[in-house]
């Protein structure tokens, strides 16, 4: 592959999962092949230095790198020590080091955390700390490998703002690896697209998205900005643009026609529907951890049969605690939760997780934590086998059925831990679905997934809904919420801050800002046409309205 990053340039690198983006990042600072080995052909030069002829320590002065996982790249327990680390390694004198620590923490807006413990920082703060650490070596190029993937929208915004500021004010070249372009497309100078280890498209964002949007989205299965999706659809319907819009600000309101009195709303966004029975009833639930932290405070809500509910809120708002109560891992300190099983109603405080697992499945954020056998087949069959009352033939039939549905047949004898991350995610969901639960909880199912995999999970949840299965998912991804949720629940400091339709949530700017949430870009675009209220929260709805107006 061939790729050049120019001085002071902001380059965004896209590509399907497993296409080689992260390997490329490690190649740029010499870790590949100097530290972790491998065979490399061709040359990689950083500011005139051939990476194979220089040690990683020398290259570190030219290239800073920030990885995806905020926790796994922080080595020290104290913020100050973490920032000092590269300078300590490069034999910088203590006085210079002290000044540089203050300067770099100031640049990323973290000065007040100088004496803090790194374990007490939020995800966004940890990523900004890693950026400050990389900056102490005065790199010419800063590589960021999906730095916002584990962050809530507010944390992601903090990180993106910091990167843009560095590029604009300090002229540091940026190579940003990302799955989603909506928040960064306006600031990118160039986009490069990778597939199977080669650069398949490279150029000006506007031109690239105008000419290759379908290839990027449909052939490679990647996300393109929602504004671009709308503009490209408009072009197919005969509308013309002076230049391809990339952002809401770019999009001219006089180009297309859109009804200004609001749209009747998609069928998905109706919120709780009267008349359906509740499968989960939560009444006055509070929860306090043994160390004294009150995670939930007098929560009451219902989840109805067949609903797809999004559980939202900033980090630490109580989402995971509530989910753990629903599956019986935690018992409420006050109040009660009832789950409607096949023919009975179960009080979760008095029911073991093993019994609850027959009715309610849970997909963890890290799928590998859930694996308990050494073969993909056994992993899927495990839940059926512990039920004791199912014949081996029936177990085999149901297990194979679900393995085929999830495209895992060729891995049937593999160890689950040997699968790719996408395959592990599919396997973890398959292990639950084979039990045909009435409810499923997904914890951040979309983390780090490209469009193709996101679409797979969306279709899966919708298929389940068709069979009457109730889904609850915890997420920070508002596009996903808009596309699939029928009901949104927002928690803030352990209390219910909002419950209703996603449409109502996205039209409540105060609720969004108080809870570190944001509305989808396409909703912002629709609001540009109709400043008070818009029911349009997905690209499809926007396009449908546009088409109806013609």
């Amino acid at each position, binding site marked *: 592959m061939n790729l050049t990053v120019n001085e002071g340039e902001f380059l965004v690198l896209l590509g399907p999962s497993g296409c080689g983006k992260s390997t490329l990042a490690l190649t740029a600072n010499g870790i590949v092949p100097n530290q972790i080995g491998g065979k490399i052909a061709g040359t990689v030069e950083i500011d005139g230095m051939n990476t194979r002829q220089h040690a*990683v320590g*020398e290259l570190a002065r030219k290239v800073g790198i920030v*990885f995806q996982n905020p926790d796994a790249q922080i*080595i020290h327990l104290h913020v100050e020590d973490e920032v000092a680390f590269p300078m*300590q390694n490069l034999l910088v004198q203590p006085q210079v080091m002290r000044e540089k620590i203050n300067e770099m923490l100031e640049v990323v807006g973290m000065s007040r955390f100088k004496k803090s413990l790194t374990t007490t920082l939020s995800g966004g703060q940890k990523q900004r700390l890693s950026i400050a650490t990389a900056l102490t070596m005065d790199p010419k190029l800063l590589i960021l490998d999906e730095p916002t993937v584990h962050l809530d929208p507010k944390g992601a915004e903090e990180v993106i703002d910091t990167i843009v500021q560095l590029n604009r004010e300090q002229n540091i070249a940026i190579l940003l690896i990302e799955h989603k372009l909506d928040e960064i497309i306006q600031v990118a100078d160039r986009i490069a697209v990778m597939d199977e280890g080669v650069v398949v498209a490279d150029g000006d964002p506007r031109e690239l998205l105008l000419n290759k949007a379908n290839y990027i989205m449909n052939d490679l299965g990647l996300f393109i900005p929602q504004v671009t999706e709308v503009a490209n659809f408009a072009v197919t319907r005969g509308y013309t643009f002076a230049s391809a819009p990339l952002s809401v600000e770019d999009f001219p309101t006089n180009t297309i026609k859109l009804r200004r009195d609001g749209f009747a709303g998609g069928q998905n966004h109706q919120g709780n529907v009267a008349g359906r029975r509740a499968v989960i009833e939560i009444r006055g639930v509070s929860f306090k951890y043994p160390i004294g932290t009150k995670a939930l405070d007098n929560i009451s809500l219902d989840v109805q049969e067949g609903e797809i509910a999004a559980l939202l809120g900033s980090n630490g708002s109580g989402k995971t605690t509530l989910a753990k109560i629903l599956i019986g891992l935690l018992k409420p300190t006050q109040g009660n939760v009832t789950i409607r099983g096949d023919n009975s109603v179960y009080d979760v405080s008095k029911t073991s997780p093993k019994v609850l697992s027959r009715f309610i499945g849970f997909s*963890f954020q890290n799928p*590998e*934590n859930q694996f308990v056998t050494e073969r993909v087949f056994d992993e899927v069959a495990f839940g059926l086998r512990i039920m004791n009352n199912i014949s081996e033939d029936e177990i085999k039939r149901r297990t194979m059925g679900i393995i085929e549905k999830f495209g895992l047949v060729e891995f049937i004898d593999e160890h689950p831990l040997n699968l790719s991350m996408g395959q592990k995610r599919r396997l973890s969901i398959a292990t639950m679905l084979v039990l045909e639960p009435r409810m499923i909880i997904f914890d951040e199912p979309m983390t780090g997934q490209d469009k193709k995999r996101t679409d797979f999970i969306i279709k899966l949840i919708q298929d389940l809904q068709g069979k009457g299965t109730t889904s609850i998912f915890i997420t920070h991804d508002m596009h996903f919420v808009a596309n699939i949720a029928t009901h949104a629940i927002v928690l803030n400091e352990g209390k219910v801050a909002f419950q209703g339709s996603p449409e109502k949530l996205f039209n409540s700017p105060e609720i969004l800002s108080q809870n570190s949430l944001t509305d989808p870009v396409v909703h912002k675009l629709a609001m540009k046409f109709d400043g008070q209220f818009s029911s349009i929260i997905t690209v499809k709805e926007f396009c449908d309205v546009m088409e109806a107006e013609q």
Partner: protein
Amino acid sequence: MSVLQYIDGNSFFHRMDPTIKFIWTFVISFLAFAVMNPFFLAILFVVQMLIIRILAGLPFRSLGKRAWIAFGPALMFFVFYTFLYPEGKGVLLDLGIVKITVEGMMYGAAIGLRFPVSVLMAIVFVLTTDSRKFVYSLIQVLKIPPKYAYVLMVALRTFPLAEEEFHNIIDAQTIRGMDAHAKGIKKRIERIRLIIIPLMARIFKGNLEQMAMAMDSRAFEAYDRMTFIEECKPSKWDITFLALWVVIFVVVIAAGIGSFGAFMNTYTPWKD
């Protein structure tokens, strides 16, 4: 909160260079295991109580449940030898099979007191030592190569992450229907194995591998030495304190109160 966690402070022990303090805990442990005289060990124990309160500035309650790490085995050994010492002549109570003797109680007290004397000082070391300063001191004062000293730093950082992963795995497997309280050795071993394998995978693949890459990309080992924001250098008081205890140790050995043989000879009764 972890059982053993640094407590911030400004006492003599808090200010002491961690390497000197570390060596001192070894000196005092050697001293405790070299001596079999319960009266000497009792005096040593009282001196240590004064050290905890005055030199380390720690209220006794700060030891809390941690004290059981020291006093639990002490009590156990004292009771064990009081009842089961075979050669005692000064019988205090004769219960037929079991005789409680003066020699047995003295022997039990000597063996038992070794634990609080050595373990309490190790606890005080942990409670008064900032782990980062310890790592920096190992590199600067003890001249340990950074790549070895940083193993400790990474371990300190990884421990809370591993603890979190451990709980996540237990939770995930519990809701898959795994029995949290497996009965029988075979089932228990299987249960542990099913936790250890993903835990190791998460720690090594997920955390340690990436931490190693992060360290490399921050120029770790670019040179065979490092500079530091804070210079670690033992003060003259630190050196005097350590020297004093080394002298006490030498005098105890020279005067015959203790001997190197006592390390091994755990069954020699206290008597001449």
